[in-house]
Protein backbone atom coordinates (compact mmCIF):
# COMPACT_ATOMS: atom_id res chain seq x y z
CA UNK A 1 0.00 0.00 0.00
CA UNK A 2 2.72 2.42 0.91
CA UNK A 3 5.57 2.92 -1.51
CA UNK A 4 7.25 5.94 0.07
CA UNK A 5 7.04 5.05 3.72
CA UNK A 6 7.03 1.23 3.96
CA UNK A 7 4.11 1.28 6.36
CA UNK A 8 2.64 -2.03 7.46
CA UNK A 9 -0.37 -2.52 5.14
CA UNK A 10 -3.75 -1.73 6.67
CA UNK A 11 -4.84 -5.21 5.54
CA UNK A 12 -2.54 -6.77 8.12
CA UNK A 13 -4.32 -4.85 10.90
CA UNK A 14 -7.67 -5.88 9.43
CA UNK A 15 -6.54 -9.51 9.48
CA UNK A 16 -5.25 -9.24 13.05
CA UNK A 17 -8.53 -7.79 14.29
CA UNK A 18 -10.63 -10.40 12.46
CA UNK A 19 -8.43 -13.20 13.77
CA UNK A 20 -8.64 -12.06 17.41
CA UNK A 21 -12.39 -11.46 17.18
CA UNK A 22 -12.87 -14.79 15.41
CA UNK A 23 -11.14 -16.67 18.22
CA UNK A 24 -13.19 -14.86 20.90
CA UNK A 25 -16.52 -15.31 19.13
CA UNK A 26 -15.81 -18.93 18.18
CA UNK A 27 -14.78 -19.72 21.75
CA UNK A 28 -17.83 -17.98 23.15
CA UNK A 29 -20.06 -19.94 20.74
CA UNK A 30 -18.52 -23.25 21.84
CA UNK A 31 -18.93 -22.37 25.53
CA UNK A 32 -22.60 -21.61 24.96
CA UNK A 33 -23.19 -24.62 22.68
CA UNK A 34 -25.20 -26.64 25.16
CA UNK A 35 -26.76 -23.61 26.89
CA UNK A 36 -27.71 -21.10 24.16
CA UNK A 37 -28.42 -17.58 25.46
CA UNK A 38 -32.06 -16.88 26.26
CA UNK A 39 -34.02 -14.49 24.11
CA UNK A 40 -31.80 -14.95 21.05
CA UNK A 41 -33.70 -16.19 17.99
CA UNK A 42 -32.32 -19.09 15.94
CA UNK A 43 -29.74 -19.83 18.62
CA UNK A 44 -30.05 -23.49 17.58
CA UNK A 45 -28.05 -22.56 14.47
CA UNK A 46 -25.01 -21.67 16.65
CA UNK A 47 -24.19 -18.62 14.56
CA UNK A 48 -21.24 -17.54 16.77
CA UNK A 49 -19.45 -20.82 16.04
CA UNK A 50 -19.53 -20.67 12.26
CA UNK A 51 -19.28 -16.87 12.10
CA UNK A 52 -16.29 -17.00 14.43
CA UNK A 53 -14.73 -19.73 12.28
CA UNK A 54 -15.24 -17.59 9.18
CA UNK A 55 -13.52 -14.64 10.88
CA UNK A 56 -10.62 -16.88 11.95
CA UNK A 57 -10.09 -18.16 8.39
CA UNK A 58 -10.31 -14.69 6.81
CA UNK A 59 -8.17 -13.12 9.52
CA UNK A 60 -5.51 -15.82 9.18
CA UNK A 61 -5.42 -15.41 5.39
CA UNK A 62 -5.04 -11.61 5.64
CA UNK A 63 -2.38 -11.90 8.38
CA UNK A 64 -0.37 -14.42 6.41
CA UNK A 65 -0.63 -12.56 3.10
CA UNK A 66 0.17 -9.11 4.49
CA UNK A 67 2.52 -10.04 7.34
CA UNK A 68 5.18 -7.29 7.47
CA UNK A 69 8.41 -8.92 6.33
CA UNK A 70 11.71 -7.17 6.71
CA UNK A 71 12.99 -6.01 3.33
CA UNK A 72 16.55 -6.86 2.36
Amino acid sequence: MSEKHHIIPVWFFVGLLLLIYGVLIFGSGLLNWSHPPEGVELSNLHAPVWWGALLIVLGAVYCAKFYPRRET
Partner: protein
Amino acid sequence: MIAAMTLAAPTTLVHLSGVDLIIIAIYFLLVLAIGFYLKKFAKTGEDFFLAGREMTAWVAGLAFVSANLGSLELLGWAGNAYQYGIMAAHWYWIGAIPAMVFLGLVMMPFYYISKTHSVPGYLKLRYGTEASALSAVTFAFMTILMSGVNMYAMALVMEVVLGWDLNFSIVVSSLTVGVYVAAGGLFSAIFNEVLQFFLIWFGALLIPILGMIETGGWSGMVARIHERFPGQDFTHMWGPMSSASNNPMGVQWIAIVFGLGAVQSMGYWTTDFLVVQRVLSAKDVRSAKLAPIIGAFFKMAVPLIVILPGLLGRAVLNVHLVPGNVAQPGQFKFDDVLPLMLARYCGPGLLGLGITALIAGFMAGMAGNVSAFATVWTYDIYRPYMRKDAPDAHYVSMGRWCTIIGLIVSIGTAYLVQYNKSMMDYVQALFGFFIAPLFGTVVLGMLWKRVSRMAGFWGLLAGVVTSVTAFMLMKFDPSWVKVFAFSPLAQPLAQAMWQALWACVTCVVVTVLVTLVTKPKPDEELRGLVYALTEVPREEHTSWLHRPAVWGVAALVILVVLQIIFW
Protein backbone atom coordinates in the same frame (compact mmCIF):
# COMPACT_ATOMS: atom_id res chain seq x y z
CA MET B 1 -34.20 12.74 13.82
CA ILE B 2 -31.39 12.66 16.34
CA ALA B 3 -33.00 15.08 18.73
CA ALA B 4 -35.74 12.56 19.01
CA MET B 5 -33.31 9.99 20.40
CA THR B 6 -33.32 11.86 23.65
CA LEU B 7 -36.99 11.17 24.12
CA ALA B 8 -38.16 7.88 25.42
CA ALA B 9 -35.34 5.64 26.43
CA PRO B 10 -37.41 2.60 27.47
CA THR B 11 -34.70 0.48 29.11
CA THR B 12 -31.30 -0.50 27.83
CA LEU B 13 -31.82 -2.39 24.59
CA VAL B 14 -29.00 -4.90 25.03
CA HIS B 15 -26.90 -6.32 27.83
CA LEU B 16 -23.24 -7.01 27.23
CA SER B 17 -21.35 -10.00 28.59
CA GLY B 18 -17.67 -10.19 29.51
CA VAL B 19 -16.58 -11.34 26.05
CA ASP B 20 -18.46 -8.41 24.47
CA LEU B 21 -16.60 -5.93 26.69
CA ILE B 22 -13.26 -7.58 25.82
CA ILE B 23 -14.08 -7.19 22.10
CA ILE B 24 -14.84 -3.49 22.59
CA ALA B 25 -11.67 -2.94 24.67
CA ILE B 26 -9.50 -4.64 22.01
CA TYR B 27 -10.84 -2.26 19.38
CA PHE B 28 -9.86 0.79 21.46
CA LEU B 29 -6.40 -0.63 22.15
CA LEU B 30 -5.79 -1.45 18.49
CA VAL B 31 -6.80 1.98 17.14
CA LEU B 32 -4.59 3.70 19.71
CA ALA B 33 -1.68 1.40 18.85
CA ILE B 34 -2.17 2.12 15.13
CA GLY B 35 -2.21 5.86 15.86
CA PHE B 36 1.09 5.68 17.77
CA TYR B 37 2.61 3.46 15.08
CA LEU B 38 1.64 5.87 12.28
CA LYS B 39 2.92 8.98 14.08
CA LYS B 40 6.44 8.50 12.78
CA PHE B 41 5.20 8.51 9.19
CA ALA B 42 3.18 11.74 9.44
CA LYS B 43 6.04 14.23 9.32
CA THR B 44 5.37 16.51 6.35
CA GLY B 45 2.22 18.43 5.49
CA GLU B 46 1.47 16.07 2.62
CA ASP B 47 1.82 13.09 4.99
CA PHE B 48 -0.30 14.52 7.76
CA PHE B 49 -3.06 16.12 5.69
CA LEU B 50 -3.13 13.86 2.61
CA ALA B 51 -1.68 10.58 3.91
CA GLY B 52 1.40 11.11 1.74
CA ARG B 53 -0.74 10.80 -1.42
CA GLU B 54 0.27 7.16 -1.58
CA MET B 55 -2.89 5.17 -0.94
CA THR B 56 -3.91 2.49 -3.42
CA ALA B 57 -7.27 2.76 -5.15
CA TRP B 58 -8.69 0.06 -2.86
CA VAL B 59 -7.66 1.75 0.39
CA ALA B 60 -8.76 5.20 -0.81
CA GLY B 61 -12.02 3.70 -2.15
CA LEU B 62 -12.87 1.91 1.09
CA ALA B 63 -12.00 4.99 3.17
CA PHE B 64 -14.13 7.10 0.79
CA VAL B 65 -17.22 4.96 1.29
CA SER B 66 -16.51 4.37 5.01
CA ALA B 67 -16.29 8.08 5.75
CA ASN B 68 -20.00 8.12 4.96
CA LEU B 69 -20.83 4.79 6.64
CA GLY B 70 -21.07 6.20 10.14
CA SER B 71 -23.31 4.87 12.84
CA LEU B 72 -25.78 7.75 12.63
CA GLU B 73 -26.15 6.76 9.01
CA LEU B 74 -26.68 3.07 9.83
CA LEU B 75 -29.17 3.63 12.63
CA GLY B 76 -31.00 6.43 10.82
CA TRP B 77 -31.39 4.64 7.48
CA ALA B 78 -32.36 1.33 9.06
CA GLY B 79 -35.04 3.39 10.87
CA ASN B 80 -36.05 5.05 7.58
CA ALA B 81 -36.32 1.61 5.94
CA TYR B 82 -38.65 0.52 8.75
CA GLN B 83 -40.67 3.72 8.32
CA TYR B 84 -40.73 4.13 4.52
CA GLY B 85 -39.81 0.65 3.28
CA ILE B 86 -37.36 -0.11 0.49
CA MET B 87 -37.78 3.44 -0.90
CA ALA B 88 -35.05 4.37 1.58
CA ALA B 89 -32.61 2.46 -0.66
CA HIS B 90 -32.83 5.35 -3.13
CA TRP B 91 -30.28 7.15 -0.94
CA TYR B 92 -27.82 4.28 -1.52
CA TRP B 93 -28.46 3.72 -5.20
CA ILE B 94 -29.64 6.61 -7.38
CA GLY B 95 -28.69 8.92 -4.50
CA ALA B 96 -25.05 7.82 -4.53
CA ILE B 97 -23.86 5.66 -7.43
CA PRO B 98 -24.18 8.14 -10.36
CA ALA B 99 -22.48 10.81 -8.23
CA MET B 100 -19.60 8.51 -7.28
CA VAL B 101 -19.05 7.50 -10.90
CA PHE B 102 -19.25 11.18 -11.95
CA LEU B 103 -16.68 12.11 -9.31
CA GLY B 104 -14.33 9.36 -10.46
CA LEU B 105 -14.60 9.85 -14.21
CA VAL B 106 -15.24 13.60 -14.59
CA MET B 107 -14.21 15.60 -11.51
CA MET B 108 -11.38 13.67 -9.88
CA PRO B 109 -8.83 14.35 -12.65
CA PHE B 110 -9.19 18.11 -12.05
CA TYR B 111 -8.99 17.84 -8.26
CA TYR B 112 -5.95 15.58 -8.57
CA ILE B 113 -4.04 17.26 -11.39
CA SER B 114 -4.47 20.70 -9.79
CA LYS B 115 -2.60 19.22 -6.75
CA THR B 116 -5.09 20.87 -4.46
CA HIS B 117 -5.20 19.71 -0.86
CA SER B 118 -8.93 20.49 -0.41
CA VAL B 119 -12.14 21.55 -2.15
CA PRO B 120 -11.83 25.18 -0.94
CA GLY B 121 -8.23 24.94 -2.18
CA TYR B 122 -9.53 24.08 -5.67
CA LEU B 123 -11.95 27.03 -5.51
CA LYS B 124 -9.03 29.32 -4.67
CA LEU B 125 -7.08 28.14 -7.70
CA ARG B 126 -10.11 28.25 -10.01
CA TYR B 127 -11.92 31.39 -8.81
CA GLY B 128 -9.85 33.24 -6.22
CA THR B 129 -10.06 34.02 -2.53
CA GLU B 130 -13.72 35.15 -2.36
CA ALA B 131 -15.42 31.84 -3.21
CA SER B 132 -12.66 29.86 -1.46
CA ALA B 133 -12.94 31.84 1.80
CA LEU B 134 -16.74 31.53 1.86
CA SER B 135 -16.49 27.79 1.32
CA ALA B 136 -13.57 27.26 3.76
CA VAL B 137 -15.03 29.23 6.66
CA THR B 138 -18.48 27.64 6.37
CA PHE B 139 -16.99 24.17 5.96
CA ALA B 140 -14.64 24.51 8.95
CA PHE B 141 -17.41 25.88 11.16
CA MET B 142 -19.95 23.25 10.15
CA THR B 143 -17.50 20.36 10.28
CA ILE B 144 -16.56 21.04 13.86
CA LEU B 145 -20.20 21.37 14.84
CA MET B 146 -20.95 18.08 13.09
CA SER B 147 -18.13 16.41 15.00
CA GLY B 148 -19.81 17.54 18.23
CA VAL B 149 -23.17 16.27 17.02
CA ASN B 150 -21.58 12.89 16.21
CA MET B 151 -20.00 12.80 19.65
CA TYR B 152 -23.26 13.55 21.41
CA ALA B 153 -25.23 11.15 19.21
CA MET B 154 -22.77 8.37 20.02
CA ALA B 155 -22.99 9.04 23.74
CA LEU B 156 -26.77 9.08 23.49
CA VAL B 157 -26.95 5.80 21.58
CA MET B 158 -24.58 4.19 24.07
CA GLU B 159 -26.77 5.45 26.91
CA VAL B 160 -29.99 4.17 25.32
CA VAL B 161 -28.59 0.90 23.96
CA LEU B 162 -26.13 -0.05 26.69
CA GLY B 163 -26.96 2.19 29.62
CA TRP B 164 -23.49 3.81 29.57
CA ASP B 165 -22.98 7.19 31.22
CA LEU B 166 -23.10 10.07 28.70
CA ASN B 167 -19.97 11.78 30.06
CA PHE B 168 -18.00 8.53 30.01
CA SER B 169 -18.78 7.95 26.32
CA ILE B 170 -17.93 11.55 25.35
CA VAL B 171 -14.61 11.58 27.23
CA VAL B 172 -13.43 8.14 26.12
CA SER B 173 -14.38 8.58 22.45
CA SER B 174 -12.93 12.10 22.12
CA LEU B 175 -9.68 11.17 23.88
CA THR B 176 -9.21 8.15 21.65
CA VAL B 177 -9.99 10.04 18.44
CA GLY B 178 -7.82 12.98 19.55
CA VAL B 179 -4.81 10.77 20.25
CA TYR B 180 -4.92 8.76 17.05
CA VAL B 181 -5.73 11.60 14.63
CA ALA B 182 -3.27 14.07 16.21
CA ALA B 183 -0.60 11.38 16.01
CA GLY B 184 -1.06 9.97 12.52
CA GLY B 185 -3.20 12.59 10.75
CA LEU B 186 -5.04 11.35 7.67
CA PHE B 187 -3.01 8.10 7.78
CA SER B 188 -4.71 7.22 11.07
CA ALA B 189 -8.14 8.37 9.94
CA ILE B 190 -7.94 6.27 6.76
CA PHE B 191 -6.58 3.16 8.52
CA ASN B 192 -9.41 3.32 11.01
CA GLU B 193 -12.00 3.87 8.31
CA VAL B 194 -10.84 0.69 6.57
CA LEU B 195 -11.00 -1.21 9.89
CA GLN B 196 -14.45 0.25 10.51
CA PHE B 197 -15.59 -0.91 7.07
CA PHE B 198 -14.80 -4.54 7.91
CA LEU B 199 -16.24 -4.25 11.42
CA ILE B 200 -19.52 -2.87 10.15
CA TRP B 201 -19.89 -5.58 7.52
CA PHE B 202 -18.98 -8.46 9.81
CA GLY B 203 -20.92 -6.95 12.70
CA ALA B 204 -24.15 -6.40 10.78
CA LEU B 205 -24.23 -9.02 8.02
CA LEU B 206 -25.60 -11.73 10.28
CA ILE B 207 -28.83 -9.78 10.75
CA PRO B 208 -30.02 -10.12 7.12
CA ILE B 209 -28.69 -13.70 6.88
CA LEU B 210 -30.52 -14.91 9.98
CA GLY B 211 -33.53 -12.70 9.19
CA MET B 212 -33.87 -14.31 5.78
CA ILE B 213 -33.61 -17.77 7.34
CA GLU B 214 -36.31 -16.90 9.89
CA THR B 215 -38.72 -15.43 7.36
CA GLY B 216 -38.09 -17.98 4.61
CA GLY B 217 -36.33 -15.69 2.15
CA TRP B 218 -37.38 -12.52 0.33
CA SER B 219 -40.85 -13.74 -0.66
CA GLY B 220 -41.48 -14.99 2.88
CA MET B 221 -40.49 -11.62 4.31
CA VAL B 222 -42.72 -9.74 1.85
CA ALA B 223 -45.65 -12.04 2.66
CA ARG B 224 -45.20 -11.42 6.39
CA ILE B 225 -45.08 -7.63 5.88
CA HIS B 226 -48.27 -7.71 3.77
CA GLU B 227 -49.96 -9.86 6.39
CA ARG B 228 -49.00 -7.56 9.26
CA PHE B 229 -49.50 -4.24 7.42
CA PRO B 230 -52.24 -4.84 4.84
CA GLY B 231 -52.71 -2.21 2.15
CA GLN B 232 -49.29 -0.64 2.67
CA ASP B 233 -46.45 -0.98 0.17
CA PHE B 234 -43.01 -1.26 1.77
CA THR B 235 -41.28 -3.37 -0.87
CA HIS B 236 -41.36 -1.34 -4.10
CA MET B 237 -39.04 1.54 -4.96
CA TRP B 238 -40.60 3.38 -7.91
CA GLY B 239 -44.13 2.00 -8.19
CA PRO B 240 -45.61 4.13 -5.38
CA MET B 241 -43.97 7.32 -6.66
CA SER B 242 -46.34 8.33 -9.43
CA SER B 243 -47.89 10.73 -6.93
CA ALA B 244 -46.82 12.17 -3.57
CA SER B 245 -50.00 10.84 -1.99
CA ASN B 246 -49.13 7.22 -2.87
CA ASN B 247 -46.18 6.85 -0.53
CA PRO B 248 -45.42 7.66 3.11
CA MET B 249 -42.50 9.93 2.16
CA GLY B 250 -44.77 12.26 0.19
CA VAL B 251 -42.38 12.37 -2.74
CA GLN B 252 -42.72 12.09 -6.52
CA TRP B 253 -40.18 10.39 -8.80
CA ILE B 254 -39.10 13.74 -10.22
CA ALA B 255 -37.74 14.84 -6.84
CA ILE B 256 -35.84 11.57 -6.44
CA VAL B 257 -34.29 11.77 -9.92
CA PHE B 258 -33.49 15.49 -10.07
CA GLY B 259 -33.43 16.61 -6.43
CA LEU B 260 -31.69 13.59 -4.92
CA GLY B 261 -29.88 11.98 -7.87
CA ALA B 262 -28.81 15.05 -9.85
CA VAL B 263 -28.19 17.63 -7.11
CA GLN B 264 -28.21 16.48 -3.49
CA SER B 265 -26.06 13.40 -3.97
CA MET B 266 -23.81 15.08 -6.54
CA GLY B 267 -23.22 17.88 -4.06
CA TYR B 268 -22.43 15.56 -1.20
CA TRP B 269 -20.26 12.99 -2.97
CA THR B 270 -18.32 15.36 -5.21
CA THR B 271 -17.79 18.49 -3.11
CA ASP B 272 -18.02 17.52 0.56
CA PHE B 273 -14.36 17.63 1.46
CA LEU B 274 -14.83 15.02 4.19
CA VAL B 275 -15.26 12.32 1.53
CA VAL B 276 -13.23 13.91 -1.30
CA GLN B 277 -10.16 14.16 0.99
CA ARG B 278 -10.00 10.35 1.11
CA VAL B 279 -9.71 10.14 -2.67
CA LEU B 280 -7.11 12.92 -2.81
CA SER B 281 -4.85 10.59 -0.82
CA ALA B 282 -4.62 8.22 -3.83
CA LYS B 283 -1.17 7.56 -5.26
CA ASP B 284 -1.87 8.57 -8.89
CA VAL B 285 -4.61 9.87 -11.20
CA ARG B 286 -5.81 6.43 -12.22
CA SER B 287 -6.13 5.34 -8.58
CA ALA B 288 -7.94 8.59 -7.78
CA LYS B 289 -10.41 7.91 -10.62
CA LEU B 290 -10.85 4.28 -9.63
CA ALA B 291 -11.27 4.85 -5.87
CA PRO B 292 -14.80 6.36 -5.96
CA ILE B 293 -15.87 3.68 -8.44
CA ILE B 294 -14.63 0.91 -6.14
CA GLY B 295 -16.52 2.73 -3.39
CA ALA B 296 -19.64 2.72 -5.59
CA PHE B 297 -19.74 -1.09 -5.76
CA PHE B 298 -19.56 -1.36 -1.97
CA LYS B 299 -22.09 1.43 -1.52
CA MET B 300 -24.54 -0.47 -3.71
CA ALA B 301 -24.27 -3.44 -1.34
CA VAL B 302 -24.81 -1.44 1.87
CA PRO B 303 -28.66 -1.75 1.73
CA LEU B 304 -28.09 -5.41 2.55
CA ILE B 305 -26.95 -4.47 6.07
CA VAL B 306 -29.02 -1.31 6.53
CA ILE B 307 -32.26 -1.37 4.50
CA LEU B 308 -32.92 -5.13 4.72
CA PRO B 309 -32.70 -5.18 8.55
CA GLY B 310 -35.24 -2.33 8.60
CA LEU B 311 -37.61 -4.32 6.37
CA LEU B 312 -37.02 -7.47 8.41
CA GLY B 313 -37.93 -5.46 11.49
CA ARG B 314 -41.36 -4.87 9.89
CA ALA B 315 -41.68 -8.60 9.28
CA VAL B 316 -40.53 -10.09 12.57
CA LEU B 317 -40.50 -7.61 15.46
CA ASN B 318 -43.38 -8.00 17.87
CA VAL B 319 -43.04 -4.45 19.17
CA HIS B 320 -44.48 -1.54 17.20
CA LEU B 321 -41.93 1.21 16.55
CA VAL B 322 -43.03 4.86 16.42
CA PRO B 323 -41.54 8.15 15.18
CA GLY B 324 -38.95 9.54 17.58
CA ASN B 325 -40.77 12.83 18.11
CA VAL B 326 -43.92 11.14 19.41
CA ALA B 327 -42.34 8.22 21.30
CA GLN B 328 -43.39 7.97 24.93
CA PRO B 329 -41.30 6.43 27.70
CA GLY B 330 -41.43 2.66 27.23
CA GLN B 331 -41.91 2.86 23.44
CA PHE B 332 -39.30 2.01 20.85
CA LYS B 333 -38.46 4.42 18.01
CA PHE B 334 -37.83 3.75 14.33
CA ASP B 335 -34.11 4.35 14.86
CA ASP B 336 -34.00 1.54 17.43
CA VAL B 337 -34.69 -1.09 14.78
CA LEU B 338 -31.04 -1.99 14.10
CA PRO B 339 -30.06 -2.48 17.78
CA LEU B 340 -33.30 -4.41 18.30
CA MET B 341 -32.50 -6.73 15.39
CA LEU B 342 -28.93 -7.08 16.65
CA ALA B 343 -30.20 -8.11 20.08
CA ARG B 344 -32.72 -10.50 18.43
CA TYR B 345 -30.11 -12.60 16.60
CA CYS B 346 -26.79 -11.99 18.31
CA GLY B 347 -25.70 -13.59 21.58
CA PRO B 348 -22.46 -13.02 23.51
CA GLY B 349 -19.50 -12.29 21.27
CA LEU B 350 -21.53 -11.40 18.18
CA LEU B 351 -23.29 -8.68 20.14
CA GLY B 352 -19.91 -7.24 21.15
CA LEU B 353 -18.86 -7.26 17.50
CA GLY B 354 -22.05 -5.43 16.45
CA ILE B 355 -21.70 -2.82 19.20
CA THR B 356 -18.00 -2.37 18.37
CA ALA B 357 -19.01 -1.75 14.76
CA LEU B 358 -21.39 1.02 15.92
CA ILE B 359 -18.71 2.57 18.16
CA ALA B 360 -16.17 2.37 15.32
CA GLY B 361 -18.66 4.08 13.01
CA PHE B 362 -19.19 6.94 15.43
CA MET B 363 -15.50 7.40 16.10
CA ALA B 364 -14.61 7.27 12.41
CA GLY B 365 -17.26 9.97 11.85
CA MET B 366 -15.62 12.19 14.46
CA ALA B 367 -12.13 11.44 13.14
CA GLY B 368 -13.23 12.22 9.58
CA ASN B 369 -14.66 15.56 10.65
CA VAL B 370 -11.66 16.66 12.71
CA SER B 371 -9.11 15.58 10.09
CA ALA B 372 -11.01 17.47 7.37
CA PHE B 373 -11.35 20.47 9.72
CA ALA B 374 -7.60 20.45 10.49
CA THR B 375 -6.77 20.48 6.76
CA VAL B 376 -9.19 23.25 5.79
CA TRP B 377 -8.29 25.39 8.80
CA THR B 378 -4.54 25.03 8.27
CA TYR B 379 -4.35 25.28 4.48
CA ASP B 380 -7.38 27.38 3.55
CA ILE B 381 -7.72 29.79 6.48
CA TYR B 382 -4.54 29.90 8.59
CA ARG B 383 -1.97 29.80 5.79
CA PRO B 384 -3.50 32.31 3.34
CA TYR B 385 -4.87 34.79 5.89
CA MET B 386 -2.73 34.49 9.03
CA ARG B 387 0.75 33.11 8.36
CA LYS B 388 1.71 32.76 4.73
CA ASP B 389 5.33 31.63 4.61
CA ALA B 390 5.93 29.39 7.59
CA PRO B 391 7.97 26.18 7.23
CA ASP B 392 6.12 22.95 6.48
CA ALA B 393 6.75 21.64 10.02
CA HIS B 394 4.86 24.63 11.42
CA TYR B 395 1.74 23.72 9.42
CA VAL B 396 1.96 20.08 10.55
CA SER B 397 2.18 21.28 14.14
CA MET B 398 -0.81 23.56 13.49
CA GLY B 399 -2.71 20.54 12.08
CA ARG B 400 -2.01 18.55 15.26
CA TRP B 401 -3.12 21.43 17.50
CA CYS B 402 -6.19 21.95 15.34
CA THR B 403 -7.16 18.34 15.88
CA ILE B 404 -6.99 18.78 19.66
CA ILE B 405 -8.69 22.19 19.66
CA GLY B 406 -11.31 20.93 17.20
CA LEU B 407 -12.15 18.07 19.55
CA ILE B 408 -12.38 20.40 22.54
CA VAL B 409 -14.80 22.61 20.57
CA SER B 410 -16.69 19.46 19.58
CA ILE B 411 -17.00 18.43 23.23
CA GLY B 412 -18.39 21.91 23.96
CA THR B 413 -20.83 21.49 21.08
CA ALA B 414 -21.84 18.07 22.37
CA TYR B 415 -22.73 19.50 25.79
CA LEU B 416 -24.43 22.50 24.20
CA VAL B 417 -26.58 20.15 22.17
CA GLN B 418 -27.40 18.23 25.33
CA TYR B 419 -29.18 21.29 26.68
CA ASN B 420 -30.68 22.43 23.39
CA LYS B 421 -31.81 19.32 21.53
CA SER B 422 -33.35 21.10 18.55
CA MET B 423 -29.88 22.46 17.76
CA MET B 424 -28.88 19.02 16.44
CA ASP B 425 -31.40 19.10 13.64
CA TYR B 426 -30.42 22.68 12.78
CA VAL B 427 -26.73 21.81 12.63
CA GLN B 428 -27.45 18.94 10.26
CA ALA B 429 -29.70 21.14 8.13
CA LEU B 430 -27.06 23.89 8.06
CA PHE B 431 -24.53 21.46 6.64
CA GLY B 432 -26.87 20.77 3.75
CA PHE B 433 -27.22 24.48 2.96
CA PHE B 434 -23.74 24.69 1.44
CA ILE B 435 -23.40 21.37 -0.33
CA ALA B 436 -25.94 21.70 -3.18
CA PRO B 437 -24.87 25.17 -4.40
CA LEU B 438 -21.21 24.25 -3.98
CA PHE B 439 -21.71 21.47 -6.53
CA GLY B 440 -23.02 24.04 -9.04
CA THR B 441 -20.02 26.30 -8.42
CA VAL B 442 -17.39 23.55 -8.66
CA VAL B 443 -18.79 21.71 -11.67
CA LEU B 444 -19.38 24.90 -13.69
CA GLY B 445 -15.85 26.00 -12.86
CA MET B 446 -14.43 22.67 -14.05
CA LEU B 447 -16.41 22.36 -17.26
CA TRP B 448 -16.75 25.97 -18.49
CA LYS B 449 -13.60 28.08 -18.70
CA ARG B 450 -15.58 31.31 -19.27
CA VAL B 451 -16.94 31.37 -15.66
CA SER B 452 -15.42 34.42 -13.99
CA ARG B 453 -13.92 34.96 -10.56
CA MET B 454 -16.85 36.94 -9.12
CA ALA B 455 -19.44 34.68 -10.80
CA GLY B 456 -18.18 31.79 -8.66
CA PHE B 457 -18.57 33.80 -5.47
CA TRP B 458 -21.98 35.37 -6.22
CA GLY B 459 -23.41 32.10 -7.56
CA LEU B 460 -22.35 30.24 -4.42
CA LEU B 461 -23.68 32.94 -2.12
CA ALA B 462 -27.02 33.14 -3.98
CA GLY B 463 -27.38 29.35 -3.78
CA VAL B 464 -26.71 29.30 -0.04
CA VAL B 465 -29.17 32.15 0.57
CA THR B 466 -31.84 30.31 -1.47
CA SER B 467 -31.23 27.13 0.49
CA VAL B 468 -31.48 28.88 3.87
CA THR B 469 -34.60 30.79 2.78
CA ALA B 470 -36.40 27.69 1.51
CA PHE B 471 -35.53 25.79 4.70
CA MET B 472 -36.72 28.56 7.01
CA LEU B 473 -39.95 29.17 5.12
CA MET B 474 -40.90 25.48 5.03
CA LYS B 475 -39.89 24.98 8.67
CA PHE B 476 -41.82 27.88 10.15
CA ASP B 477 -44.74 28.14 7.73
CA PRO B 478 -45.84 24.74 6.33
CA SER B 479 -47.91 26.47 3.63
CA TRP B 480 -44.59 27.04 1.82
CA VAL B 481 -44.02 23.28 1.52
CA LYS B 482 -46.54 23.17 -1.33
CA VAL B 483 -44.73 26.02 -3.09
CA PHE B 484 -41.21 24.59 -2.94
CA ALA B 485 -41.99 20.86 -3.01
CA PHE B 486 -45.12 20.95 -5.23
CA SER B 487 -47.07 18.95 -2.64
CA PRO B 488 -48.24 19.77 0.88
CA LEU B 489 -47.57 16.11 1.76
CA ALA B 490 -43.80 16.36 1.30
CA GLN B 491 -41.99 15.02 4.39
CA PRO B 492 -38.65 16.49 5.60
CA LEU B 493 -36.59 14.13 3.39
CA ALA B 494 -38.58 15.21 0.31
CA GLN B 495 -38.38 18.88 1.35
CA ALA B 496 -34.58 18.62 1.60
CA MET B 497 -34.43 17.28 -1.98
CA TRP B 498 -36.43 20.19 -3.37
CA GLN B 499 -34.46 22.66 -1.26
CA ALA B 500 -31.21 21.31 -2.76
CA LEU B 501 -32.63 21.48 -6.28
CA TRP B 502 -33.72 25.12 -5.92
CA ALA B 503 -30.39 26.10 -4.34
CA CYS B 504 -28.38 24.51 -7.15
CA VAL B 505 -30.57 25.97 -9.90
CA THR B 506 -30.23 29.44 -8.34
CA CYS B 507 -26.47 29.03 -8.06
CA VAL B 508 -26.16 27.99 -11.72
CA VAL B 509 -28.43 30.79 -13.01
CA VAL B 510 -26.65 33.51 -10.99
CA THR B 511 -23.22 32.14 -11.94
CA VAL B 512 -24.10 32.19 -15.65
CA LEU B 513 -25.64 35.68 -15.49
CA VAL B 514 -22.69 37.19 -13.59
CA THR B 515 -20.26 35.43 -15.94
CA LEU B 516 -21.89 37.09 -18.94
CA VAL B 517 -21.30 40.57 -17.54
CA THR B 518 -17.83 40.09 -16.02
CA LYS B 519 -14.36 39.52 -17.39
CA PRO B 520 -13.14 35.87 -17.60
CA LYS B 521 -9.85 34.74 -16.08
CA PRO B 522 -6.98 34.46 -18.56
CA ASP B 523 -6.32 30.96 -19.96
CA GLU B 524 -2.86 30.71 -18.45
CA GLU B 525 -4.37 30.94 -14.94
CA LEU B 526 -6.77 28.09 -15.69
CA ARG B 527 -4.43 25.42 -17.03
CA GLY B 528 -4.87 22.14 -15.12
CA LEU B 529 -8.11 23.42 -13.61
CA VAL B 530 -10.76 23.36 -16.35
CA TYR B 531 -11.80 20.83 -18.99
CA ALA B 532 -10.78 22.79 -22.07
CA LEU B 533 -7.28 23.55 -20.77
CA THR B 534 -6.27 20.35 -19.00
CA GLU B 535 -4.41 17.36 -20.37
CA VAL B 536 -5.97 14.38 -18.59
CA PRO B 537 -3.69 11.30 -18.87
CA ARG B 538 -5.16 8.87 -21.40
CA GLU B 539 -5.50 5.17 -20.71
CA GLU B 540 -5.03 3.66 -24.18
CA HIS B 541 -2.18 1.50 -22.97
CA THR B 542 -4.08 0.23 -19.94
CA SER B 543 -5.94 -3.06 -20.34
CA TRP B 544 -9.71 -2.58 -20.38
CA LEU B 545 -9.97 -4.43 -17.07
CA HIS B 546 -8.00 -1.66 -15.36
CA ARG B 547 -9.84 1.27 -16.91
CA PRO B 548 -11.99 3.31 -14.50
CA ALA B 549 -14.53 4.03 -17.28
CA VAL B 550 -15.24 0.33 -17.79
CA TRP B 551 -15.97 -0.19 -14.10
CA GLY B 552 -17.94 3.05 -13.91
CA VAL B 553 -20.24 1.85 -16.68
CA ALA B 554 -20.51 -1.58 -15.00
CA ALA B 555 -21.61 0.12 -11.76
CA LEU B 556 -24.28 2.09 -13.63
CA VAL B 557 -25.57 -1.04 -15.40
CA ILE B 558 -25.90 -2.88 -12.06
CA LEU B 559 -27.70 0.18 -10.68
CA VAL B 560 -30.27 0.02 -13.49
CA VAL B 561 -30.76 -3.73 -12.98
CA LEU B 562 -31.38 -3.19 -9.25
CA GLN B 563 -34.00 -0.53 -10.05
CA ILE B 564 -35.80 -2.96 -12.38
CA ILE B 565 -35.69 -5.82 -9.84
CA PHE B 566 -37.14 -3.71 -7.02
CA TRP B 567 -39.32 -1.44 -9.19
